[in-house]
């Protein structure tokens, strides 16, 4: 399998506090990597390191390399990098305004003015996020009229409209009911054909359902990496076993 993102000896600090410890990890292209681990294990920081979302924080410091398609991400313009690597947050954050406004936000930032092209992008991304049928006749309605699950799919569509290559998801279903969660996972199964997905989740069952590869983090260290079958049925490390059996976390 082709590697989309190669993480080499990645350490991450907030001030004196080390959050990630020398992580080596290859993220395969057109597959879903599920990152599991208890709270404060460095999962979210991993995502923020990949798309450099913490760049402007004063006390955040990174060591090691993250390579996207043979390019060190440090050499890329942060805005360019974030266009290529989209991000879905734990709480669906919709921008005040219409559904259309939210979806066209990224493309407009990137200079697309043509109305025709914008509408095409909006429809295309809504279809891919399995939201089109529910909102197609009310694109100019305020986003607050959508349910929580719809808002999260809107956030996914908004990221897709930006035409990224990688999608990072930070516990995207943590506040959602099972039906909404199922819809998002359905969308994810379709999306990985064209995108590389990294999903951070607290839910080991979700990791098993969606991941082609699973990485287990504990205390800022990568403890185990492998296929879901291997990690969940025959973990090599005792701590992985304890975690997935629910002994802690």
């Amino acid at each position, binding site marked *: 399998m082709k590697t989309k993102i190669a993480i080499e000896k990645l350490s991450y600090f907030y001030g004196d506090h080390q959050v990630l410890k020398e992580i080596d990890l290859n993220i395969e292209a057109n597959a879903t990597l599920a990152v599991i681990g208890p709270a404060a294990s460095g999962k979210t920081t991993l995502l923020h390191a990949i798309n450099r979302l913490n760049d402007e924080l004063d006390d955040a410091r990174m060591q090691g390399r993250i390579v996207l398609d043979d390019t060190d991400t440090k050499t890329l313009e942060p805005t360019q990098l974030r266009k290529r690597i989209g991000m879905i947050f734990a709480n669906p954050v919709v*921008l005040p305004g219409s559904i259309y406004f939210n979806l066209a936000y990224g493309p407009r930032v990137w200079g697309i003015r043509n109305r025709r092209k914008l509408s095409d992008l909006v429809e295309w991304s809504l279809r891919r996020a399995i939201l089109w049928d529910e909102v197609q006749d009310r694109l100019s309605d305020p986003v607050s009229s959508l349910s929580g699950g719809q808002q999260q799919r809107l*956030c996914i569509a*908004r990221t897709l409209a930006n035409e990224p290559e990688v999608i990072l998801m930070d516990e995207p279903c943590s506040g959602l009911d099972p039906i909404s969660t199922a819809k998002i996972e359905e969308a994810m199964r379709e999306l990985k054909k064209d995108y590389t997905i990294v999903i951070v989740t607290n839910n080991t069952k979700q990791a098993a359902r969606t991941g082609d590869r699973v990485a287990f983090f504990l205390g800022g260290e990568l403890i185990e990496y492998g296929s879901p079958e291997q990690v969940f049925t025959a973990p090599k490390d005792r701590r992985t076993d304890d975690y997935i059996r629910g002994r802690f976390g």
Partner: protein
Amino acid sequence: MRIEPRAEQRIMRVALAGLAALTIAVLFFIIGFILKNGLPHVNLAFLIGTPERMGKEGGILPMIVGTFYLVLVAVAIATPLGVGSAIFLHEYAKEGWLVRVVRFGIDCLAGIPSIIFGLFGFVLFVITLGFGWSILSGGLTLAFMILPTIIRTSEEAIKAVPGAYRQVSKSLGAGKWQTIQRVVLPNAFPGILTGIILGIGRSVGETACVIFTAGSSLQMPASVFAPTRSMAVHFYILAREGISMEKAFATAAVLILLILAINLSAYYFMHRFIARLR
């Protein structure tokens, strides 16, 4: 002695409602008093006429126009300066001693009596820069006076925009300025507008700093370099010099109605804007 709890609730409720009612009553009393004494002397000829015999007779059109120009100049200068400073303070500047000193300075500026602003404007704009008694000098001085209000309210409004919006915008590849322009400012707009309205309210009613810098000419101002007399100054001179109490009250009534109209229309537009955003 122990008061029965339900009686205590009732007593406090009535007492607090009374205090609130008293505040409103004072406001209505002042407005009512001015309007009762002033409105009978307000008519169309007063509104569109020019003053004669030092204002003892005639109307106040030049003062209405002069007030309008003064406020326009003040707001046109103070808004970009104030909103720009607020954006810098909250979005760009790193929280440190320098920012704290700037903030402290802004608060001090807000506490300076308006007559000191007047004196400052007189020395700087009227004398040193040679603008003379003019709408420009008056407007610039007023702009400095309302600047702290606009900076502070704008900063609060910008601060109130959730950080998550900025993060989402950033995660979609927007640069800092793009995020400010497309997400922060539109969402902070109602709050920023409130600051501008407060600024308009203060400058419309300002006397001390205008009399020093814009003069007290009775002529219709021909340009921003011409001196003028604002409605508040006109009212002050009419009453102080004992020229005409009737005309003084009439001017005050028009001034109060004008301020009321500004506030109401601003709130109307603000609500429409918020409704469109939701």
